[in-house]
């Protein structure tokens, strides 16, 4: 299966990763090769087999509905690149 540059561009858009022209060309080639190796899965009979998301017999682990102290706001905001009035600041989402 050959991945076109357009397909790579589309996936990069979905992943929100800016790629250079060189990366676009390189990934089109490498991803095609890697995805080609996935064909081996079609040889495994999975008729009637349930998927495994993880290997533990755990489902819907609940915690009690109680309030607990959390990290102070200033500790968390200290790590942020841009802050205003106790909020994380970003460029306008809607233009």
């Amino acid at each position, binding site marked *: 299966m050959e991945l076109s540059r357009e397909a790579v561009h589309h996936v990069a858009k979905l992943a929100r990763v800016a790629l250079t022209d060189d990366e676009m060309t390189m990934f089109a080639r490498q991803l095609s090769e890697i995805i080609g190796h996935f064909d081996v899965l079609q040889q495994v009979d999975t008729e009637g087999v349930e998927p495994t998301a993880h290997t533990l017999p755990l489902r819907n*682990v609940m915690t009690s509905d109680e309030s607990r102290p959390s990290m102070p706001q200033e500790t968390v905001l200290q790590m942020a690149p841009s802050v205003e009035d106790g909020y994380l600041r970003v460029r306008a989402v809607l233009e």
Partner: protein
Amino acid sequence: MADLHYLTIHDAADMLARREVTSRELTHAVLDRIHAVDIQVRAFITTTAELALAQADAADRRIAAGERSPLLGVPVAIKDVLCTNGILTTCGSKMLEHFIPPYDATVARRLFDAGAVMVGKTNMDEFAMGSSTENSAFFPTHNPWALDRVPGGSSGGSAAAVAAGEATYALGSDTGGSIRQPAALCGVVGMKPTYGRVSRYGLVAFASSLDQIGPFTRDVRDCATVLNAICGHDPCDSTSAAVDTPDFTADLEGGVKGMRIGVPREYLPDTLEPGVRALVEEALRALEAQGAAVDYDLTLPSTEAALAVYYIIAPSEASANLARYDGVKYGFSYQHGASMWENMEKTRGIGFGQEVKRRIMIGTYALSAGYYDAYYLKAQKVRTVIRREFDAAFEKYDVIAGPVTPTPAFKIGEKTADPYAMYLNDVFTLPVNIAGLPGISIPCGFVDGLPVGLQIVGKPFDEATVLRAAYAYEHAAGWSTTHPTL
């Protein structure tokens, strides 16, 4: 007397208890060793000498007050994928080059409570993606046995640090072999516990259904000792299993008489390097001589498919986990774009290295509309098939054994141009993650001066049997006293 920097944990603990050495002296010896050899090995991203000496002094006070505890006052190195409160945690990435976590990972907390002395944070492939530590955004780590070769990865810094005497033990993480493979290539003991055995709170997430934290040590007894300290349910990680934690050191000397060991045919393929095959077969004969029943007739037919399953599931989960690096909350942030989206895309384009971007792309593709059923869902179904093959094998065998890697350490730069060739390194280790099983790598000899590892895999939550087999082999072989010349 052995060099202080090459003591095992249990020898160090004995000497500390007998007051033959102080934690401060032990810590100084390790820090001096780092100073002397890390310019060649480059195992550490950050060294924390000041913190280490403060922790050593605190440990000496606890020892003077009569406290005896196996890790008290003993130096440890921690992979830079684990959060440490107030201490730089880069994950080997430009994205987190200046990230200082506001909390400790549960495993770090448990070690600190037990009196551990942290000498530094170790180098790794960026976001734990890689098999050579060449994907570190900062510098590659060198194999202490041959400086022109890789230490393996992704926990290459932790493995190299223990091999080079730059820490008494270390912590790493293993998603597809990232503890066992570098342990094999550096000639130390490395264990990935059962999925769910160790809390991952504070572990920078890569592939959440596969990631597990484990120790690098100089011998099997030390491995069991560290497991005792880090295992157990944690309310902060709801995927940590609420199962009892036995004393893993209790049954070490039980021997392998009557133990049934299965060797999968698929793990001894024709393509296996002859030197590796010879050493693994010799190790299996040594176990046989101790009374184990070794059977070479086991087959795990989906071993080849496991590589494809892994390289769909791990990147898919990674693409979701790494969505958090948006340049808004923490980490590297590109701020000069015209829009929020441009800033976010450039943040990720510049902040992530090529292997991380490659895996995000694979994962995003595998999860995208029109391909989900063919790739991700199919991989999850084959995952069930793989687990069933292991379950069936464990009805006949107590443990499964084979090589850790197809070859010893390769040259730095040898495989960087071909991502798929690099992925093939993990062919014997990643099925163990897919099935969520415990697995250990222990040294089983040298090919042309390069260490080779024997892998022993057990039933879920049966680390004790794996450790008992590993201990029996180690005592028959005696490799753990061998160190590289640096």
